[in-house]
């Protein structure tokens, strides 16, 4: 016997081996026992749910010389002939190759001929949805009154495409997608027989990804065995399936919801360059967006994410407007990754569109009321903002840029609820000293601008806007090794301390890369020029690392329901104090 793939090797041979379709197999088995098998049957169901296997078992059962309670014995000459594919009275046709009226007439003309080898002539007509209308019509009479020795089993994944007149003449059985449990049970059996060791968690993950198709699951299992040998854990499954892109997806939706198009595009492209499965990224991003939506509507309990992820989502949820969440979900949900699976374009389009058109006035959810000024998409709510009237000089045609470019989020968070009116440093800004309003940004043409309480609202003149311009300008510039704009995008906080601009990075590697670029005289020069151009002043630069891991984590206070409520109304955390 030559090697066979699992789904052929382990094809069920008896009713009782058919996984997950007890409602079908029990009925059929009983019909065989009572000798009351219908002569025209229709098996509907998604791929890999056992339609053809069941049809073959039934063909054996009705012809078996020594059936056991309606189950075929698999021992007698007829059963063996079926199993070896040489039984004359089992005729398997695919309707795709035999879809025309001539082929159907051929069947019809011969249907009155007696069975040669067995008691029943069984026709299994796979992909029955491919029959043409003419052929279907020609088939009707045969299906309505098949001779006593003939059984027709029509199988299809697509019953909607079958003529109602055909359906009404058949006894219909609907094959369901298999539950994960049913798949797992079958996989366990195969795994044991094949002598491979697959962890329960791995099996679960595998069963979950099979989309209710046993054949898909069996194929995946086999592929795991081929790829990783006989001992398989959940990591192997994730690797094979391209799962585990939670981090990336989280980054993506965070930038998306904050309207930071540039960073979101960057997140997508970096995933693509790393060879990540973009379809999976897309799927997970949509799931996370859905999570944000649920959180915004207060149904935290219905979230099915790890605690950590939920915390991240809770951080994002209050900062994004409900409208944007819905819009993003809609646009991303519509993305069809069917074609060009390796191209990021469709995701990019959705991201740009989700961030587009949004009136600059749009504010975070429920924040409008608390907002005296024309609200900005930036989550920062500025009670005491100062304007800087001059536009950044070199802003390209996209002058109408939405706010929310990189860095917006962490720039400063003065809050009306904070006890001290002095803007304190944000926790994430790490080891940089608290910027105060005294630390103004010297400008050539204008008065000082408080960097830490960046300005309100006039389009294009806030620190964020300027920072955004800077990032964009520098994204055209590839340094010695890295794109400096991209590196700056990873910069979580920018604080001005006198003439020093403190750039805080969440990850050491990003900081080191930036340092490397700044060590290069050419890189330094470019950055300085860009600073001058975009911010209108020259600064010394200092790089610092955020405390703890991931500058994006919300402060512990944010976990308190009261603070969360305040946050959702547009408040900002200024400072946390140990009591």
């Amino acid at each position: 016997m030559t090697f066979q793939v699992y789904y052929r090797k382990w094809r069920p041979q008896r009713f009782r081996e058919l996984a997950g379709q007890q409602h079908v197999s029990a009925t059929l088995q009983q019909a065989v026992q009572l000798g009351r098998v219908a002569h025209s049957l229709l098996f509907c169901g998604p791929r890999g749910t056992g339609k053809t296997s069941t049809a073959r078992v039934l063909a054996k059962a009705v012809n078996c010389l020594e059936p056991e309670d309606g189950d075929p014995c698999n021992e007698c000459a007829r059963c063996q002939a079926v199993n070896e594919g040489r039984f004359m009275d089992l005729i398997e046709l695919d309707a795709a190759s035999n879809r025309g009226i001539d082929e159907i007439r051929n069947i019809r003309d011969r249907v009155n001929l007696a069975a040669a080898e067995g008691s029943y002539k069984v026709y299994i007509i796979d992909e029955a949805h491919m029959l043409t209308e003419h052929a279907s019509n020609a088939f009707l009479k045969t299906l309505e009154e098949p001779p006593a020795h003939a059984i027709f089993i029509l199988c299809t994944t697509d019953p909607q495409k079958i003529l109602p007149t055909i359906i009404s003449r058949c006894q219909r059985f609907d094959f369901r997608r298999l539950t994960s449990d049913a798949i797992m049970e079958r996989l366990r059996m195969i795994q044991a027989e094949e002598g491979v060791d697959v962890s329960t968690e791995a099996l679960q993950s595998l069963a979950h990804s099979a989309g209710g198709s046993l054949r898909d699951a069996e194929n995946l299992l086999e592929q795991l065995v081929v790829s990783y040998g006989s001992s398989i854990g959940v990591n192997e499954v994730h690797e094979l399936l391209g799962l585990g892109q939670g981090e990336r997806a989280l980054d993506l939706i965070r930038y998306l919801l904050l309207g930071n198009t540039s960073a979101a595009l960057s997140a997508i492209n970096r995933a693509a360059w790393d060879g990540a499965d973009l379809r999976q990224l897309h799927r997970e991003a949509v799931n996370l967006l859905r999570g944000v939506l649920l959180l915004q509507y207060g149904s935290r309990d219905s979230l099915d994410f790890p605690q950590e992820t939920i915390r991240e989502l809770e951080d994002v949820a209050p900062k994004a407007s409900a409208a944007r969440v819905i819009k993003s979900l809609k646009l991303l949900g519509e993305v069809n990754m069917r074609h060009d699976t390796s191209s990021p374009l469709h995701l990019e389009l959705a991201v740009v569109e989700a961030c587009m058109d949004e009136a600059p006035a749009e504010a975070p959810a429920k924040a409008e009321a608390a907002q005296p000024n024309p609200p900005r998409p930036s989550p920062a709510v500025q009670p005491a903002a100062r304007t800087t009237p001059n536009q950044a000089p070199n802003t390209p045609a996209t002058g109408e840029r939405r706010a929310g470019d990189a860095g917006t989020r962490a720039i400063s968070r003065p809050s009306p609820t904070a006890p001290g009116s002095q803007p304190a440093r944000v926790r994430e800004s790490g080891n940089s000293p608290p910027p105060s309003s005294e630390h103004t940004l010297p400008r050539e043409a204008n008065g000082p601008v408080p960097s830490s309480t960046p300005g309100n609202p006039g389009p294009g003149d806030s620190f964020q806007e300027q920072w955004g311009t800077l990032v964009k300008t520098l994204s055209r510039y590839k340094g010695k090794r890295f794109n400096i704009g991209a590196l700056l995008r990873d910069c979580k906080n920018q604080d001005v301390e006198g003439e020093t601009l403190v750039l805080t990075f969440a990850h050491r590697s990003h900081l080191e890369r930036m340092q490397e670029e700044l060590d290069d005289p050419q890189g330094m020069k470019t950055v300085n020029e860009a600073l001058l151009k975009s911010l209108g002043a020259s600064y010394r630069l200092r790089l610092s690392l955020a405390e703890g891991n991931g500058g994006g984590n919300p402060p512990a206070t944010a976990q308190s329901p009261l603070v969360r409520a305040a946050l959702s109304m547009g408040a900002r955390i200024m400072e946390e104090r140990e009591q």
Partner: protein
Amino acid sequence: MWQVRGHDPLLRQLDKSIKEGRYAHSYLLVGPPQVGKGTLAINMAQAVNCLSPEQAPCGQCSQCRRIASTQHADVLVIGVGRGEDDGPSRKEIGIGDVREIERQASLNPYEGSHRVFIFDGAERMSEEAANALLKTLEEPPPQVMIILLTSQEGALLPTILSRCRRLELKPLPFSEIAKELVETHSMDREDAEMLARLSLGCPGWAISAAGDPSIMEKRKEELERISELSVSGLEERFSYASDLGSLFYKDRDGARDILRLWLRWWRDLLLIKEGAEEYIHNVDWSDVLRLRAAELSTAQVVAFIKVILTTLEALDHNANARLALEVMALSLPGERTGG
């Protein structure tokens, strides 16, 4: 020797399963165009037919050589290909092709030990053909291997996917391709890096472009036209659409490639507008792209990208090519009247 570049884990797995005789009868090779799917499929055909199983695919034995030169009677590549000189190109892989391979599959191999059927561009199978293939794909006779190649996995029927062992060829890191070009095609570093980047990680394209300067020439011409058309008048745009329409009639893939150039160009514009210039594709054109980007709004760019996508889809569905392309030309923003 496996001739596919990169993809070491995948090759190890494949090599092992072929040497142990545990290979599947149906494979699906997924990956972008020119990433090496065709080469891998040919290598697989050699491996199962090779006369030196220990070194399979040795590339030296008569079997390997005949397969490499597409003369082997048992290794059949089915694709849409280009049309005859004046005739139209084939639109799809039809049911006739599937019936023919079914007939051949039932016979013992002619000169080798395995019949191998390679569907190049499996997504081009008609619905009828794909459905007709399912039975053979699921339970082919012994000594038959079916390899489906696709860059659009999602366009295949789930029932097809579910019957195949899936191997994914991801784009290679640019550095790997650049290295290859420097080492084996003695290119200078800078050119190699540029080609590697333009190849989007697909060595097939990079290597042919390295060996054939006309490919880059052609790209330059096409991009020049694309760039010019952004500021040209309606008349030129229509004439361009008509030329592209006639090309499509003869050489579908060629015309699609040009539309993909359009798509990349416009994606670059989008990335520049949205501050992600470091990810643009046509890096050597960034100055021009920046200029063009400045003349357009993001909304215009987004809208036109959608038009290109719709056009590509319409062509895939056998729409009137010229009409579809003219609609595209009409939707191109930035028309100069009277120009």
